């Protein structure tokens, strides 16, 4: 159902229930109204609408307007002002398009709405007209006329500026009265156009069930005039072509007055099907997300488990291979050490190598043999107890023998006092 399709129209002291294209006359109270409704009213012809200038800050515009209504003698009782539009004009000036309603009547309506289960928004007729102008494409000001029963409401405005509004009342709906009405309206429009120094772009007529479409005003205006798009409304075994209901359905419920949380309830009610659809979509999306997530995490868990199992196997292999590797290295090391022991010269071999090269004149007093990793260091300290000529010759021959046996001479220190000589020798042998 289109938002705003359900209305109660309280107009010309009659009450109608508009549901879609069906209009039913109600007995006068709203008790039989079901479902969410917007109450459209002219406040039983007690209201006065006006576009006025107030000498006050814009936030006090309504209060100033109320005072002005009373000062002008429109009301002799407290009034409530419903603003349709207002605009700041200078520091302490404002313009306001509003409807003044006796507070007594106004609160009566609000109480009716508050006390009703389904009525939630109060929408003055002038609010409908004011909002309607905003929906009509135009550059210059336009005039909207809504005639209903003995009354005609006029609003001259453009989107950003409201110029004039008035209600016209006839004694009856005779042709003569109607003709006079249009003459008056025509004159009023011309006056307003002249006073406001504006050029009217078009005049739009909104009709009601008791007004035909061939109103005489068409002949009276030079400006482009037309009846706004009508729709067929079925009411009490009859059908009518009405444009006001069309304008009404274009009107935003936000323009209405909602006591308490009326607007919230209204929109919540209207949006309920959409909210439900969104909610169901959300549930579906979340459910599919959950299942998708669950499926993915399940796969992920399976992958993790497989990886952990793989790691566990690798660790087992590594753990089992560590002792094998360790035993292997130990064996290699031990065999290497056996090889080394077997092939390194023994103490006796070294002593024999040394002694075999000794000449009778050479005596060794100190012998050191030191085995390192694969090298043997041999230090010899000795004396040669003959004259230098023989001693050095024997010593050189001794060294030559050692070299031929595979020893390297790292250090060779030979000292002599002619008759006797000493030597200090450092040899090395390495396994090749």
């Amino acid at each position, binding site marked *: 159902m289109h938002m705003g399709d359900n209305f109660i129209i309280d107009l010309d002291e009659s009450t109608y229930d508009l549901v879609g294209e069906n209009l039913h006359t109600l007995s006068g109270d709203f008790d039989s109204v079901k479902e969410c409704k917007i109450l459209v009213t002219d406040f039983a012809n007690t209201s006065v609408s006006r576009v006025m200038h107030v000498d006050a800050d814009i936030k006090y515009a309504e209060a100033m307007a109320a005072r002005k209504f009373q000062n002008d003698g429109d009301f002799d009782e407290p009034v409530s002002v419903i603003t349709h539009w207002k605009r700041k004009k200078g520091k302490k000036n404002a313009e306001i398009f509003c409807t003044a309603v006796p507070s007594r009547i106004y609160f009566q309506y609000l109480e009716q709405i508050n006390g009703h289960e389904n009525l939630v928004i109060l929408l003055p007729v002038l609010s409908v007209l004011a909002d309607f102008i905003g929906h009509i494409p135009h550059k210059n000001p336009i005039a909207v006329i809504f005639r209903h029963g003995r009354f005609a409401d006029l609003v001259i405005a453009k989107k950003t500026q409201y110029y004039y509004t008035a209600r016209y009342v006839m004694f009856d709906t005779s042709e003569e009265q109607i003709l006079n009405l249009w003459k008056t309206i025509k004159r009023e429009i011309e006056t307003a156009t002249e006073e406001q120094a504006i050029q009217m772009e078009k005049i739009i007529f909104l009709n009601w069930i008791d007004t035909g479409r061939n109103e005489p005003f068409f002949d009276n205006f030079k400006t482009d005039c037309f009846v706004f798009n009508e729709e067929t409304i079925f009411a009490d075994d009859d059908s009518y072509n009405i444009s006001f209901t069309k304008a009404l359905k274009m009107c935003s419920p936000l323009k209405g007055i909602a006591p308490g949380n009326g607007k919230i309830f209204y929109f919540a009610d209207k949006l309920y099907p959409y909210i439900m659809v969104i909610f169901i979509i959300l549930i579906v999306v979340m459910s599919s997300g959950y299942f998708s997530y669950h499926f993915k995490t399940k796969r992920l868990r399976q992958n993790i488990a497989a990886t952990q199992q793989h790691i566990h196997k690798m660790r087992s292999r590594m753990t089992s291979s560590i002792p094998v590797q360790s035993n292997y290295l130990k064996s290699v090391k031990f065999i290497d050490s*056996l090889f080394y022991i077997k092939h390194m010269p023994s*103490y006796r071999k070294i002593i024999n190598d040394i002694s*075999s090269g*000794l000449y*009778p004149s050479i005596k060794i007093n100190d*012998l*050191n043999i030191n085995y390192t990793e694969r090298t043997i260091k041999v230090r010899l300290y000795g004396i040669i107890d003959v004259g230098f000529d023989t001693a050095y010759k024997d010593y050189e021959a001794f060294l030559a023998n050692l070299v031929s046996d595979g020893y390297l001479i790292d250090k060779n220190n030979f000292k002599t006092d002619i008759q006797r000589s000493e030597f200090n020798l450092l040899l090395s042998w390495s396994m090749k």
Partner: protein
Amino acid sequence: MNRFITETDNLGLTKDRWDNLAVNIKNKFLNFPELKKIISLTDNSYLYYFKPSFLQIKTNRSGMGISNPASKKNFIQSKADDSLNSDIQKIHETDLPESKKFNNSQHHGDVTVSLIGYFLIRKR
């Protein structure tokens, strides 16, 4: 790798199949026959291996030392004490017939010996 380990194990070429007996002689006074005996025992044999590490031989008396008085090849003897010559020569000729002769002395404590190493004996 496993095969190698198995083979070495079968051949007894693992450390746990061998006993390790350390030798640590420090500044011991020995005469030449004793020294010769000890040195000869540090040769590898079919019963064991000897892993040499350190040997120090110092002569204790002035003029005594390792020498080869008779020829360039065969002897180590003390020239300071002629009476030892025959003994030394005898020792070397009898105990070291492989042409390597070791100087010796009948005097107790001809040399001071330090010897470090260990025997590696295969377990039966």
